[in-house]
């Protein structure tokens, strides 16, 4: 083989390696360019900022979901947590005159409480997360409907004013909060022992127990944090909408799971990140929806196209793991060559 060919071959491997290692980001860029080419309007700063703003609510909730997924669990009650925690805050403000700040705090507390409720059944009674959170999802929604008698709950106008806040006059509050929570969660996952323990538990809980980690407490904390993230996401949505109706948050758990999985998290646990991971995933979901609208795709085809993109992205991600595994094999054999 000529020298030139060899170089080009090794270069090719490096490019595929780069592409496969950063699969979520790569797909994100491709989708972005695709929509940008089909509709120039899509690329305007305004529209991009709008996408980011719309992604913030699900994005923040999805950060919590990411934590739970990394530990190898799932939280199906996320949408109901969003609903119930904002209802509690809204009722306290409307009927008991609680200040918005205090009410927000109570909202987060309620989210933590629901997470703790899930955690209790999962870690103490050893019931599968899927079953526990499914029950919480149904019960939480029911409780919320009971409290509001199924009527929409309006929030004070001051809330909308807060929601219109822009940092430096251009960065909307939801994006700001999304960025802050993503940074916090990512730092937590990469730089705090508890965050690292999530990955260990998600890879193999029995191994983690034998390594002396308090597995139950670790798992419980993930559900509590997920509840807090969900209620924070709910708060962000409320500052934009000013109202909570009976369907608020319904089905959000699946958007959150989709965002996390698009961002590289695995339902089998042990893998995932807040940034770039889930942030990219959440942005991508909003981007696809807006892109489909600005590309003037038939309304009825949009969900199907969305489904195809979601499916392809996850399939590519699975492929990625296979490709990486194959490369590892090559690297290992190369290292062997060096040793001999």
């Amino acid at each position, binding site marked *: 083989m000529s020298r030139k060919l060899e170089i080009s071959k090794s270069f090719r491997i490096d490019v595929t390696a780069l592409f496969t290692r950063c699969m979520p980001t790569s797909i994100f860029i491709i989708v972005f360019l695709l929509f940008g080419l089909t509709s120039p309007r899509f690329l305007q700063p305004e529209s991009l900022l709008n996408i980011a703003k719309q992604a913030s609510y699900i994005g923040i909730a999805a950060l919590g979901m990411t934590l739970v997924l990394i530990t190898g669990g799932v939280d199906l009650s996320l949408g109901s947590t969003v609903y119930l925690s904002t209802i509690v805050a809204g009722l306290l403000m409307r009927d008991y005159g609680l200040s918005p700040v205090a009410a927000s705090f109570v909202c987060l507390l309620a989210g933590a409480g629901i997470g703790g409720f899930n955690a209790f059944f999962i870690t103490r009674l050893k019931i599968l997360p899927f079953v526990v959170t499914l029950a919480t999802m149904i019960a939480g929604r029911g409780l919320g409907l009971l409290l509001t008698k199924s009527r929409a709950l309006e929030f004070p106008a001051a809330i909308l004013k807060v929601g219109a806040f822009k940092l430096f006059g251009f960065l909307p509050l939801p994006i700001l909060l999304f960025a802050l929570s993503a940074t916090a969660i990512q730092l937590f996952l990469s730089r*705090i*022992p508890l965050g690292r*323990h999530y990955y*260990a538990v998600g890879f193999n809980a029995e*191994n983690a127990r034998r390594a002396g980690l308090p597995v139950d407490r670790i798992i419980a904390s993930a559900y509590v944090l997920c509840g807090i993230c969900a209620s924070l996401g709910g708060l962000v949505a409320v500052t934009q909408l000013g109202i909570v109706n009976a369907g608020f948050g319904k089905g959000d758990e699946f958007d959150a799971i989709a965002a996390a999985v698009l961002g590289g998290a695995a339902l089998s646990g042990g893998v995932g990140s807040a940034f770039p991971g889930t942030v990219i995933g959440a942005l991508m979901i909003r981007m696809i929806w807006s892109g489909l609208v600005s590309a003037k795709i038939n309304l009825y085809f949009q969900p199907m196209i969305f489904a195809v993109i979601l499916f392809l992205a996850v399939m590519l991600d699975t492929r990625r793991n296979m490709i990486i595994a194959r490369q590892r094999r090559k690297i290992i054999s190369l290292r062997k060559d060096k040793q001999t």
Partner: protein
Amino acid sequence: MTPLISIRNIDKSFFGAPALRSVSFDIIPNRILGLIGENGAGKSTLMNILCGELQPDSGELYFRGRPFRLEGPAAAAEAGIALIHQELNLFNNLSIADNLFLSRYPRRGPWIDKGAMHDKALQLLHQVGLDLPPNWLLERLRPGERQLVEICKALHADAELVIFDEPTTSLTAAEKERLFQVIDGLKQRGKTIIYISHDLDEVMRLCDDIVVLRDGRMVDFGAASEFTLQRMIASMCGCELEYLFPIRQGTPQAQVLLEVRHLSAEGLVEDVSFEIRKGEILGLFGLMGSGRTELARLLFGLEPFDSGRIVFNGRILEQPSPRRCIELGMAFVTENRREEGLLIDGTVQDNLVLATLNRFVDFARFLDAEKMASESEAQVRQLNLRCTSLKQIVKSLSGGNQQKVVLGKWLLARPLLFILDEPTRGIDVGAKYEVYSLINHLADEGAGILMISSELEELTALCDRLLVIHRGEIIKSFTKDQFDAEKILEAAFHL
């Protein structure tokens, strides 16, 4: 000298079946204690008690002369006991450094001190001669390297007593050497070591003292210098086992059963040619990662090949599938019986009939329970398989009996060719002998056998011919009269 740990009259039963009966011995500090015994002798139970996983039913433990109790793995770690398990307790999705410090990260405030972690990891890794970047994901490491990481964990925890449970089963010869050096290094640093292994030569070489367990009792104890291989074996099985290997009487027939020509698959094997005749036992020797398992997987259709030809029993196999291979009369016993060879939570019978379910259906394609039971029964008797009933869960059998179940499963299919990948890995001396006899018997009945093993001794004792594979290529072939351990090893290392 005060013993580091004294074990006094420890009893432990599981559901009424005694696993340990009144075991007592001392672990002397700064010495290497070899613990040997057949599978099911109680070694694992004893170690699980020492590392806090199990509580003894009665008896006492003393740590430097003071009585102590171990409740849970964390307590054992606290007391300075580290167990390096056969299946490593590591996390492939985390970095080397994460694995080392998982339960005790160096911190700065609430944060992990990444700088300190990196430096400390480098230093620990250097102590065992593993100079790799600590931020590498563990999945990039080879089995031997992963084990060194586990040893680093014990070093980091500043363990007084390090227990090695079958540490060498998945290591190459070079990695074993390195491990022994590391163990010697640990001893020089004043640590105490318990070394559990089926490889008696290793135990002889490495250990200062030897404890032999049989049926839950301690049957022999003494300085390693007083032991011979014969004494170890005699103590372990309670009888004089004269030969380690049965004598092979049969000779291969003339008819070629499997012919492989110029077989290549990228990254796995290259230009491999050989043939197996009826009634022949062909050995395949190579280091871990040399392509020996990959070759077996190719023959059985588990991996596709790029070029070459496989002719089996007169038929050309073009891109075979495992299903097709089974139909034509091949059997594959994998090196991973727990993961690939068995339904580990299934019963003995479930496993035995698995490969031949089609034979047990009646006219309406329903399974014939009576027929399955009677044939399984016959198989159990033929194999001398020790189980309480056909309904016993395979997981609860000893390693040797599990392997017999795997073999029995294939025997029911009456195959023409057996591909055996490490058929005696992790099973005890007595069971090994039975497996060898069975292989001999199969060959005598005209089956062809491809036997892959890391144990050169068993290959030279059993095989008619031996191929040496190195980096995916067959680099040398030996006939029985040319067998010479040194030459074969030289070829395998490609010296």
